């Protein structure tokens, strides 16, 4: 607000400037609402239409008659409650694993400085250089028959949780944040006799809330949006995520039910986003600038 931008305040202050400003603003507001909210409106109302109305040309802007039962039918036929619970289970499991293991690793690399720590960090960061999709095939072959354990991880939640830990970007973000915590603070704790774990819990974690929030969002959204990996590793329809489950059921369901299902599948993240939008958006810009 205080900073001036491209167009000077003097120019905006003139009557003509004011008129243009409000005109453009109104136009942009209308256009953006149409482009970004329009499809969501169409999705929600499309789910209320009859199958005939959905397949009608030209498409209608308002449903001629409302059929909310499409939603309940889609919910049961596509077993959305199960898909939703599965996705939540995978997302929050991945969140726990990433928070525990990645935070511990970043803390160790930043503050405890073990022998070979720099080499390990370098090897973790090197994974950022490999395009993720290139690794999908060898990763798939690996979870098919885990080395050492000789187990097949297909259809088990571990196949989502454990690979999600290998997030070098999150470790990097966390380590940089921990690096900024003054040494003296930790030394004071250790002089008081606190163990490294105790120091992590009562000194480091409480001041790391902002970065933990960012990492948590990345973790959950990552699982929520992933498609290829869960499609390959969770072939059992009872274990699938929302994305994969809806995709595989999409062919055999009437279109108005499917659209109702899409609306319901979108609702949870949208609601979470609307509640936490301020934190999410400031966290995203703070976190993603430095990669």
């Amino acid at each position: 607000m205080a900073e001036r931008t491209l167009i000077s305040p003097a120019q905006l202050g003139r009557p003509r400037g004011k008129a243009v400003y409000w005109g453009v603003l109104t136009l942009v507001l209308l256009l953006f609402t149409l482009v970004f909210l329009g499809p969501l409106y169409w999705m929600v109302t499309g789910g209320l239409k009859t199958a005939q109305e959905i397949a009608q040309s030209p498409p209608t802007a308002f449903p001629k008659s409302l059929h909310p039962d499409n939603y309940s039918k889609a919910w049961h036929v596509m077993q959305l409650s199960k898909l939703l619970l599965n996705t939540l289970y995978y997302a929050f499991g991945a969140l726990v694993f990433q928070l525990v293991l990645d935070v511990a690793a970043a803390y160790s690399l930043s503050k405890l400085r073990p022998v070979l720590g720099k080499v390990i960090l370098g090897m973790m960061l090197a994974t950022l250089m490999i395009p993720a999709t290139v690794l999908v095939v060898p990763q798939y072959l690996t979870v098919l028959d885990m080395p050492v354990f000789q187990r097949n991880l297909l259809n088990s939640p571990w196949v989502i949780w454990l690979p999600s830990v290998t997030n070098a970007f999150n470790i990097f973000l966390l380590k940089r944040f921990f690096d900024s915590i003054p040494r003296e603070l930790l030394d004071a704790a250790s002089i008081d006799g606190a163990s490294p774990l105790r120091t992590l819990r009562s000194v480091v974690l409480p001041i790391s809330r902002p970065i933990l929030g960012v990492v948590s969002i990345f973790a959950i959204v990552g699982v929520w949006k992933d498609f290829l990996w869960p499609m390959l590793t969770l072939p059992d329809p009872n274990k699938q995520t929302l994305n994969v489950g809806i995709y595989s059921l999409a062919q055999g369901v009437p279109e108005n039910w499917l659209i109702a299902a899409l609306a319901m599948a979108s609702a949870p993240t949208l609601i979470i986003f609307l509640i936490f939008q301020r934190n999410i958006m400031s966290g995203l810009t703070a976190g993603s600038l430095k990669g």
Partner: protein
Amino acid sequence: MSAPTLSTSSMPVKPPQHDGPPPVARREILVRNLRRNLSAHGFLIGAVLCFAFFSWYPMVREFLLAFQKNAAGRTTWVGLDNLDYVFHDPAFWQAWRNTLLFTGLALVLGFLVPFVIAIVINEFRHAQGYLRLLVYLPVMLPPVASVLLFKYFYDPGYGLFNGILHFLHLPEQQWLQSTSTSMLSVVIASTWMNMGGATLIYLAALQGIPGELYEAAELDGAGILRKIWHVTVPQTRLILSLLLLMQIIATMQVFTEPFLLTNGAGPEGSTTTVVYLIYQYAFNFNNYGAAAALGLVLLVLLAGFSAAYVRLSRDSES
């Protein structure tokens, strides 16, 4: 490499023979160091094991697979045969043409549009929060929802897009069903789904530009476009180049959008991308060797961009 184990102790590990600390103290230091290292490695072990199993080992395996053949449960070393096979597959060149077309279109749309939108939003003193929210909304949708939604919009018979074109008295399009528009349709959907993140990052960068620079440019008689070119662009150059690299790396690996919108192939294979071809080799033809060889080609091509990205983002920190 410094010796991190010594960072808290002022005492050298191997003190000079004549006036060092007594042997008992030396052992104590050693034990303390050992314990410190053990607990530090204890904190690391979980993540390191995950990396070992799910990143480092697959990385090695990718290289091995590319030079092996797996038939009837037996693995044989075949040298460059897989690469040879991949290069002689007509689908290879088509997939690369399609992928480059996608990347090119996505750069025009997905790279420029968010920048322009960020500049526009940044000019308003009202409703900024609402506009930011709108742009980021699609990013939060599950991809299958946005993609299937766009599939309806693109439908040539009763789709919304042709409805709009019809209303405007413009010629209707075949969208996903025609070789000339299929890739563009995929890019439009993909841009709508993903541009929110880039827009927010640009907005944050724009807010860091000092207003005096614009004032100075005005004194020199610069108009809006010249101000953008001579102030905005240079001031956000680092972010622009980082996001450009990120876009190239991401778009050359595109899979989900064409896979969901056109079942991967599209009319006459016009939306088959490189990663979809990898997917086909591996999971439709069970030819892991060819999949790994093609993956290696992609990796080599993207390594340069990744290295530039990592270097640039490191520079941006200091």
